[in-house]
C-alpha cells in the first residue's frame, strides 16, 4: 500500500493547469510545425505561421495560448494499492481552483447549465474521470478543453449494418459540418462501441492519445490514416479560410458492444489540444 497526501495532488494539479495552458504537448506541437512546413496553400501557410508565432509568444511570456482556458478535464488512473490521505476529488478541485487563480487563467464554468448560468469564478468543479488499475501508481492527466470545439463533437447510435463505411461517413460529415467553428486544424478522437454513456469517453480518450501513436489493430490503424487523409481533402483549412491542413491527428478507440448496437462518437479538439500528465 502506497500513501499519497492529498496536498501533493493539489500541488501537481495546480501546476499542470498552468503549464498545460501555456505550452502545447510536444506531439501536437510537432504536428503543427510539420503542417506549417508541408502546407502549400498561401493563406493556410500564413495562418499556421500566426499560430506558431502565438505558441512561441505564449510560452516565452508564460501566458495562455488561448483565452478559453477550458473546462478542466482530469483523467485519473488510480492503482488499487494507492491510499490517498484526504479527499481525492476535493484535492483535484483545490488544484484547479489554485492553478486557474495563480495562472491568470479564465474561469469558464457556470453552476447550472440552463436556469442559473452563474460563473463559479474559480473554474470548478473539474470534470473528473476515474479508472481503477492494478499497481501502486497514481497517474493524473489534466486536459483543459475549450468549448468552441467541444460544441462540434457528436454522438450517434449507429446500426451494426452501417458498418465501417457508416462510421467513416459520420466522421467526415461531423468535421465538414463543423467547418471553421472548432478552430481548425483540429485533433479528432473517434470512439466506437461500448454504450451511449461510454462512447463519448472513448472518443475523448482517443483524442488525447499521443499523436505519434496508432491503434494496435492494423485494420483500425489503416482507417485512422485513411480518415485523416480524407479530412484533409475537405478543403476547410486553418481557421476555415481554405487549405489542406484541416486536422493534425486522428485516433480511434474501440470497445466491445452489444449485438444490437454500434455507438460512435466523434470528439473534436481545436489546435490548442492541451494535455499534461504526472505520475505520483
Amino acid at each position: 500500500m502506497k500513501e499519497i497526501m492529498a496536498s501533493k495532488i493539489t500541488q501537481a494539479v495546480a501546476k499542470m493547469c498552468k503549464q498545460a495552458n501555456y505550452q502545447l504537448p510536444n506531439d501536437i506541437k510537432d504536428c503543427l510545425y510539420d503542417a506549417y512546413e508541408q502546407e502549400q496553400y498561401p493563406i493556410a501557410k500564413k495562418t499556421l505561421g500566426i499560430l506558431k508565432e502565438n505558441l512561441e509568444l505564449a510560452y516565452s511570456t508564460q501566458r495562455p495560448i488561448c483565452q478559453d482556458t477550458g473546462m478542466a478535464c482530469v483523467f485519473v488512473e488510480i492503482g488499487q494499492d494507492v491510499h490517498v490521505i484526504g479527499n481525492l476529488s476535493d484535492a483535484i478541485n483545490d488544484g484547479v481552483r489554485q492553478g486557474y487563480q495563480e495562472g491568470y487563467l479564465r474561469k469558464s464554468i457556470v453552476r447550472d447549465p440552463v436556469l442559473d448560468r452563474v460563473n463559479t469564478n474559480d473554474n470548478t468543479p473539474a470534470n473528473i474521470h476515474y479508472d481503477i488499475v492494478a499497481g501502486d501508481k497514481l497517474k493524473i492527466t489534466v486536459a483543459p478543453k475549450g468549448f468552441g470545439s467541444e460544441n462540434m463533437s457528436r454522438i450517434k447510435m449507429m446500426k451494426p449494418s452501417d458498418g465501417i463505411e457508416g462510421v467513416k461517413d459520420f466522421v467526415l460529415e461531423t468535421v465538414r459540418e463543423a467547418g471553421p467553428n472548432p478552430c481548425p486544424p483540429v485533433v479528432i478522437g473517434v470512439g466506437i462501441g461500448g454504450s451511449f454513456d461510454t462512447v463519448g469517453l472513448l472518443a475523448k480518450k482517443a483524442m488525447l492519445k499521443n499523436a505519434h501513436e496508432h491503434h494496435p489493430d492494423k485494420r483500425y490503424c489503416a482507417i485512422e490514416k485513411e480518415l485523416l487523409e480524407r479530412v484533409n481533402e475537405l478543403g476547410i483549412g486553418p481557421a476555415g479560410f481554405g487549405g489542406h491542413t484541416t486536422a493534425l491527428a486522428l485516433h480511434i478507440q474501440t470497445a466491445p458492444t452489444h449485438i444490437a448496437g454500434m455507438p460512435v462518437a466523434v470528439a473534436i479538439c481545436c489546435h490548442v489540444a492541451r494535455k499534461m500528465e504526472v505520475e505520483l
Partner: protein
Amino acid sequence: MIELTTPFTKEKARMLKAGDQVLLSGVIYTGRDAAHKRLVDALEHNLPLPFDPMDAIIYFVGPAPAAPGEIIGSCGPTTSYRMDAYSPKLLSVGLRGMIGKGKRNDEVVEAMKEYDGVYFGAIGGAGALMAHCVKEVEVIAYEDLGTEAIRRLVVKDMPLTVVIDSKGRDLYKIGKEKYLHYAHED
C-alpha cells in the same frame, strides 16, 4: 492589407469584400453570450444600451484575466453562431461590424445585407498575439458577468479578415472552393 479605423461607417463597410485583410484601429466593444442576451433584452424593453451601437463594432470575446503589468489577458475570438439569435436585432439599430470566428446563419447574413454589416474573422486560438493589439481596456457594463462583461477596447492594428461582407459573400465558402480548385489542378 487595408487600414481601417472606427467609427465603422456604412461607406467603409460597403468598400470591404470577403477575403480582404484588414488592420483595425480604434474603439471596439467586447460582448459574448450573456452580454448579448442583456443587450437585446434592453432593446426589447426600450432601455438604453451601455454604448452607442451606431457604426460600432462588437468583438465576440471573453478575455483571460490580465496578469500584473498587463491590461488584458489572451483574447482571441469565440465561436460566433451562438450570437446569431441576437445579432440581427443589434444590426437593426446600427451595429456595423462583428468580430468572431465560425459560421453565421441566414438571418444574420440577411440582416447584414439589409443594414450594411460586415463580419470579420479573427484567428481562433491566437489569443496571446491578439492581446498585443489591445492598448486600453475599460469595463463599461455588466461587471457581474466577469469575463463576459462588456469592455470598451482601444485596439491598434488588429489583424482581421473579412469573412462575410455587406453583400453576403462568404469567405468560408469561397475559400474552401478556391482551395479545392487549386488542389485539383495540381
